[in-house]
């Protein structure tokens, strides 16, 4: 039994297709992050799970029960919003118990739940305050409290940290993670922030233009992106995608930028998803900036001489731009390393960490 299952879901606003045949499953206790650029449909998908938007095609199942036409209040879900959406005219206590009151829970039950949740979230001192008298972090906590009180099967979070300042965001992120570890409730969490997605999710579904590009664990998404979109979206700075093709010379496959006369990067040890006709296939050679080293660290590293063109200092690290046959390549080094601009230097590509993508389909090969 899947806690949440979405089947061939399509949604359009007028003639604009927002979601195209989405299929998604979540096991009990998982933390699924929907990640994507703005306008990719992730918030619409969340609203559909909540029942706040109607569906054009397909179905939503919660615990194998088709809830596609069930009212939001009857779906056994709770939602935390970006703007917190606390009811301005009610104090914290009234905000938190509003849902239970609507559901006509008994007085004892309401009291008990309120006490449990408010002490758990450390908001018991704030119960008589109005939302306008709370700080951003406190508001966020109350909003989570309002969701917790209902003891839902699934928590839905819609960019809950976007309105907080950078420091508080990191703090609240940790609190949400702890919350999930303690309660082990299933979570669907929408964000456009990859750090949030990576640190919180047990599964990440990357969306673009209404389609799920890849749905997997953070590690696999980071190390084996399924398409150039995912490779480009995850990581900061994003993965270098070098245009070129594969050539075959005496049973050895290698990657070249132009023709067989230019530098050949051996890719024999690359773990191909499916061995298709590789010879002279046009591809992108993907390597993350952190997998380009300034000194050799293991014997399989590929040595190459490139010219440094630009240096960006960001505190603990520096990002250096190199020129590789007129394509820009970024590398990330510790800021203690001295790099001379406009000079050639030896670089070492970690070939165990590369990804190859078909140039036409943009898919991983």
């Amino acid at each position: 039994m899947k806690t949440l299952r979405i089947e061939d879901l399509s949604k359009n606003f007028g003639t604009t297709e927002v979601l195209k045949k989405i299929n998604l499953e979540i096991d009990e206790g998982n933390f699924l992050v929907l990640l994507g650029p703005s306008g990719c449909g992730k918030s619409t998908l969340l609203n559909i799970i909540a029942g706040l938007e109607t569906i054009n095609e397909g179905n939503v199942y919660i615990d194998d029960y088709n809830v596609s036409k069930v009212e939001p209040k009857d779906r056994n879900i709770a939602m935390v919003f970006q703007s917190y959406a606390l009811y301005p005219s009610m104090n914290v206590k009234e905000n938190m118990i509003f849902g239970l009151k609507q559901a006509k829970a008994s007085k004892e039950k309401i009291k008990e739940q309120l006490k449990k949740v408010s002490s758990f979230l450390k908001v018991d001192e704030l119960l008589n305050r109005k939302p306008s008298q709370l700080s951003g972090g406190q508001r966020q906590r109350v909003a989570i409290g309002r969701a917790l009180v209902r003891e839902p099967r699934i928590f839905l979070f819609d960019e809950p940290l976007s309105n907080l300042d950078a420091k508080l965001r990191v703090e609240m992120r940790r609190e949400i993670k702890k919350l999930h570890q303690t309660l082990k409730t299933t979570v669907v969490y929408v964000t456009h922030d990859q750090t949030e997605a990576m640190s919180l999710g047990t599964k990440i579904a990357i969306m673009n233009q209404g389609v799920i590009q890849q749905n997997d664990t953070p590690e696999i998404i980071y190390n084996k992106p399924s398409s150039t979109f995912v490779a480009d979206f995850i990581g900061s700075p994003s993965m270098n995608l070098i245009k070129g093709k594969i050539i075959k010379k005496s049973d050895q496959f290698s990657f070249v930028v132009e023709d067989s006369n230019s530098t050949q990067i051996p890719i024999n040890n690359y773990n191909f998803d499916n061995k298709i006709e590789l010879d002279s296939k046009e591809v992108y050679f993907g390597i993350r900036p952190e997998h380009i080293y300034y000194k050799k660290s293991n014997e399989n590293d590929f040595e190459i001489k490139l010219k440094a063109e630009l240096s960006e200092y960001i505190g603990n690290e520096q990002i250096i731009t190199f020129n590789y046959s007129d394509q820009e390549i970024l590398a990330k080094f510790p800021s203690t390393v001295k790099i001379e601009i406009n000079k050639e230097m030896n670089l070492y590509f970690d070939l165990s960490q590369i990804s190859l993508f078909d140039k036409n389909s943009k898919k991983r090969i």
Partner: protein
Amino acid sequence: MQTNITASSYKELEQKSKVTNMLLRWFLYFVLILFASYFIFPLYVMVVTSLKTMEEIRQGTLLTWPSALNFESWAVAWGGRGYGAGDTFLKPYFWNSIKMVIPAVFFSTFIGAITGYVLTKWRFKGDQWIFLFLLFGCFIPFQAILLPMARTLGVLGISNSILGLVVVHTVYGIPFTTLFFRNYYVSIPTELVKAARIDGAGFFKIFFKILLPISAPIIVVTVIWQFTQIWNDFLFGSTFSFGEAAPIQVALNNMVLSSTSVKEYNVDMASAIIAGIPTLIVYVLAGKYFIRGLTSGAVKG
């Protein structure tokens, strides 16, 4: 151009700018006082005249101060002289207007609030068209609808009644009240409504429990606006009512224009002030919210 500012020339310049500033300031006060008196002058004449006897009015000028505070003309304006035929006075018409303005303001504000709530928080296909048509209602000259409205009231059997006027004012208030509430609710995050729906609240519960409690500023604006419009209305009142069902503005007109004997300026002035007092009270009581509410909707909407 190169100028060397020495200490003495600097002082001279400073002196000069001081004088200019002072002159400008005096000029500013002069203009302000001029305009202020321009606006206060009619009110002064009205109050002063209403306190004079007819004898004094004939002998003195417009501006002369009354010899004694004489409230007799006020009493006459409000309650009449006590003899039968042809004695028009404001009291019954004042209550007519009260009976008209309170339900009309209440219903137009309430309906406007609900409509504004639906148009912003329960969007549906074609809602912007409905809003557009409602906006037309703000710009239609009311003279254009007098005949069809008279016919409608006749069919409904409520012509020449307070109820008829309440209906007319409610209907023609809705475009404005809807505009006010829509612009206010647009600035309130829709997530509030979503949260309440997940919490299990329905259409009216969300409206009464969540949105209405935070609508005070815009309610004040709407009430002031509607009260002023309806209380001061003459066109609808004179068209759709006559005789005993007339609101105060119509009665005031009848009193001032159709008196057969000598013109009693003091009574006329007192009547005009009485007819204006309720709007004044509403402004004084709720005025500070007016600007606040008006801008809060306008800026964000």
